């Protein structure tokens, strides 16, 4: 059964550095999402992406964040200048139609 994959599984970075989190959605899916979960808190929506543009974003998704689908398979989340409070588990998800979103295993981002 196809799955969403994410790399790396764990990323450690220094405050102020740029990070790129990578996701490979399920191949025939059309809608892509990023969520994050700060330790001990709920899973929060960041952004949704469809037809090569952002369809919705949350208040968290400020100018420090960007998303891109650089080719037919990858979907990336870039944080330009990381802050301590960006430390979290970041989940990618995708769906074809309807509402069954399939989640990746997550990337744990640690900002020091």
């Amino acid at each position, binding site marked *: 059964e196809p799955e969403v994959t994410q790399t790396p599984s764990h990323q450690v970075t220094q405050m102020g550095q740029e990070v790129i989190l990578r996701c490979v959605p399920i191949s025939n899916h059309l809608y892509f999402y990023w969520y994050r979960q700060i330790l001990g808190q709920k899973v929060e929506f960041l952004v949704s992406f469809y037809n090569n543009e952002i369809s919705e974003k949350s208040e968290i998704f400020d100018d420090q964040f960007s998303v891109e689908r650089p080719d037919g398979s990858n979907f990336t989340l870039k944080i330009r200048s990381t802050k301590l409070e960006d430390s979290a588990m970041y989940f990618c998800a995708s769906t074809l139609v309807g509402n069954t*979103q399939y989640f990746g295993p997550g990337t744990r981002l640690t900002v020091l």
Partner: protein
Amino acid sequence: AQRVTQPEKLLSVFKGAPVELKCNYSYSGSPELFWYVQYSRQRLQLLLRHISRESIKGFTADLNKGETSFHLKKPFAQEEDSAMYYCALSKGSASKIIFGSGTRLSIRP
């Protein structure tokens, strides 16, 4: 405001006992309701959704619009049910999912 509330952070029951995980939501409109589960060291996965009205792994959930609740139930808990359970809602097709804070279910042997 759109919100999902799961009042219990941890629920511990004995194997074979009934389980009920509570979920209440706040939403102006008719959302779609879900339960997601995350087993240890595994990814979030959909357990069930209210529109399908099916039972998965013995779990059921009934949408009560009057009480704005979507409680998850299972008559006889099994040890493999131990996991983190998230109630969630979405406003429509391919829309963002809003999650509750989750309930950790622990089944004691």
